[in-house]
């Protein structure tokens, strides 16, 4: 656990104090950090915590268009919204569960591919060679583009009759009949490609930064011991990148699981059922069908799920680090 790793620091005596030099009129040192944290805490409350609490409150109300003007009039629904949402035999729960599995698959594939691309690109660009900075810049381009503009461009690429992708596929003779990319089963893969394209430069950036901390002597020593590329990757690079990877994978997971922009811009308000990932599903359940209580219940359930996954993930990865 975290506490054990920090314990030695706490035990260590803090900076040597020179007796009698501490002026009495100042704030006690123990309170200063709290004072300095105050603005951040206030903003955090305002921006994150209060809306979250309001969201939880909404989730126990029967809040539809009849009450949005005055929430206090909304009848208390207790756990009814949760019951409808999480009853996986009912129509609402069934759709949510379907959307949940789609999202799990989407997130796993997207995070895995982003991380792999990022790792290999960073490793290959580790040593200087002509054109390295050009490639680095090129790889980071998707991350620098405005999200909406970039995804709208993808929708043009994916159009069946006039899209670039189908043009390429038919010109090269790979397909006879132009496939659909924005509807039907292919839409899942279309979404995945855009997601990876958009997100992998972040993995690349993080891993590139992480590699700066791997001392070159370690590679030299490994090379003298006769370790090849894969061996060095497995036994030097990856262990040294573990702290970076731990955070990177978590952040990518949370971003991808919650991704709203990509499906929303790609498909509009209602995604095809094969690519109905959870954020857009919740949006449709609350904003478009005006059932805000139920949408909030879904949001809260999603929040709890992500909290749980994060906690388990941190627990496992930290424990493994201790054992390492």
């Amino acid at each position, binding site marked *: 656990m975290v506490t054990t790793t920090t314990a030695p620091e706490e035990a260590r005596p803090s900076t040597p104090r020179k007796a009698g030099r501490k002026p009495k009129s100042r704030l006690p040192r123990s309170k200063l950090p709290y004072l300095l944290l105050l603005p951040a805490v206030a903003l955090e409350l305002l921006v994150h915590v209060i*809306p979250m609490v309001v969201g939880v409150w909404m989730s126990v109300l029967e809040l539809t*268009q009849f009450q949005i003007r005055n929430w206090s009039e909304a009848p208390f629904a207790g756990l009814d919204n949760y019951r409808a949402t999480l009853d996986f035999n009912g129509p609402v729960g069934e759709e949510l569960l379907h959307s949940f599995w789609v999202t799990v698959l989407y997130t796993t594939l997207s995070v895995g591919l982003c991380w792999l691309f990022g790792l290999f690109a960073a490793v290959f660009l580790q040593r200087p060679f002509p054109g390295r900075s050009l490639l680095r810049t090129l790889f980071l381009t998707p991350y620098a583009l405005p999200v909406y503009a970039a995804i709208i461009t993808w929708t043009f690429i994916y159009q069946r*009759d006039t899209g670039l992708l189908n043009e390429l596929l038919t010109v090269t003779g790979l397909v006879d009949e132009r496939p*659909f990319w924005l509807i039907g089963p292919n839409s899942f893969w279309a979404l995945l490609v855009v997601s990876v394209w958009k997100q992998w430069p972040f993995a690349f950036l993080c891993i590139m930064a992480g590699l700066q901390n791997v001392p070159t002597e370690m590679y030299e020593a490994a090379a003298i011991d006769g370790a090849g590329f894969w061996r060095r990757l497995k036994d030097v690079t990856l262990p040294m990148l573990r702290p970076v990877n731990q955070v990177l994978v978590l952040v990518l997971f949370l971003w991808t699981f919650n991704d709203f922009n990509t499906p929303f811009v790609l498909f509009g308000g*209602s995604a095809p*059922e094969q690519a109905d990932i959870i954020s857009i599903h919740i949006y449709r359940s609350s904003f*478009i069908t*005006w059932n805000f209580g139920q949408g909030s219940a879904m*949001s809260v359930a999603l929040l709890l799920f992500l909290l749980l996954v994060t906690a388990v993930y941190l627990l496992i990865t930290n424990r493994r680090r201790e054992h390492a």
Partner: protein
Amino acid sequence: MLAASVTACGDDSDGGSGGGAKTLTYWASNQGASIDFDKKTLEPELAKFEQQTGIKVNFEVVPWSDLLNRLLAAATSGKGPDVVNIGNTWSASLQATGAFVPFDDATIGAVGGKDRFVPAALAAAGAPGQPPTAVPLYSLSYALYYNKKAFSDAGITAPPTTWEELVTVGKKLTKDGKWGLALEGANPSENSHHAFAFGQQWGGEWFDAAGKPTFDTPQNVAAVKRYIDFMAVDKIVNPSNAEYAQNQSITDFANGKAAMLLWQAAGNAAKAQGMAPDAYGVAPVPFPATAPAGGKKINSMVAGINIAVFKHTKDKDAALQFVKFMTSDAEQVQLNKTYGSLPSVTTVASDAAFQAEEQKVLASVLATSAAPLPQVAEESKFETLVGTAMKELFADAASGKPITEDAVKEKLSNAQQQMGS
């Protein structure tokens, strides 16, 4: 999380009057070919209003994709514009929020009286038996647009009046990479509008008298299947239309890729895409050759835009004065002429501006064979759920899956179950 996004959309524009000069804030909907076009259209009119009354109107043209969310945010926060345009199909849903000034007899009297408005249009301004939540501003209906040259090239002399004829004609016109009909398969609202009109023709209702959804009745299944079959069975619609949601069907119609289009007031959009008004004809939307049992002679929803006043306005009188101005004879002629829509007031129907072929057809449909979408609070759910079910059916049809009655019924039952929540 949700609350954050709701308030984030909120608008801080100051509603109501300041100290001295009166100011109103107005959200206009996007009626012309672009937001800019609308700004240029409205600016001189609002200047006229300021000249006449001394009330300054700050306005913004809100795109359709944002309008409903922004209206909800304004209703939730009690802040925002004084006067807004709303899609008339949202009337009953928005009425249920209680956020708008009801046009009871006194209020509607202040803007010229109930009798001033086209009855069909006023019927689409709120639930029956309650004072309207808005008054109609621009009126529209669906019509069949057809490419005159494609028709004459194929030796077709008259537009189809029945669906059977439309299919025959469509098959003749579907060749050499061109298609008989274009439709907007991935647009849920557009789909649901057709579901309504076809439903009426097949004797179906989407809600019963108690307001309960009745989506999967045999009549509705048959009606929806008829519409999907243009692609699935008759093959007169390009399968690509299954992914159309950004008015690509108008583009296909305007550049000759498709010979027919079912649309509301497509003239302006076609013109913006380079199609001259004499290149296309306009006819009423067809009917089945023999009416199914209980089928009604309805071939369009009452489409249109209403204008409403938020209760939170600080100056209701000024807001109503503005509504009166926008529905005045002069403005109705000016604005509807520019947008290609129809006036919502009876007094100017015979104006020379509305005597073109397109407007005459739309007006006659509106007067004789149009019905409002169900005016129930859950109407917007109907549009989303049924429209999305049809989007999925089109996706299946496009990929060659057979669209059976059971498949349609299953989708509609599924949509109906989600209403119950």
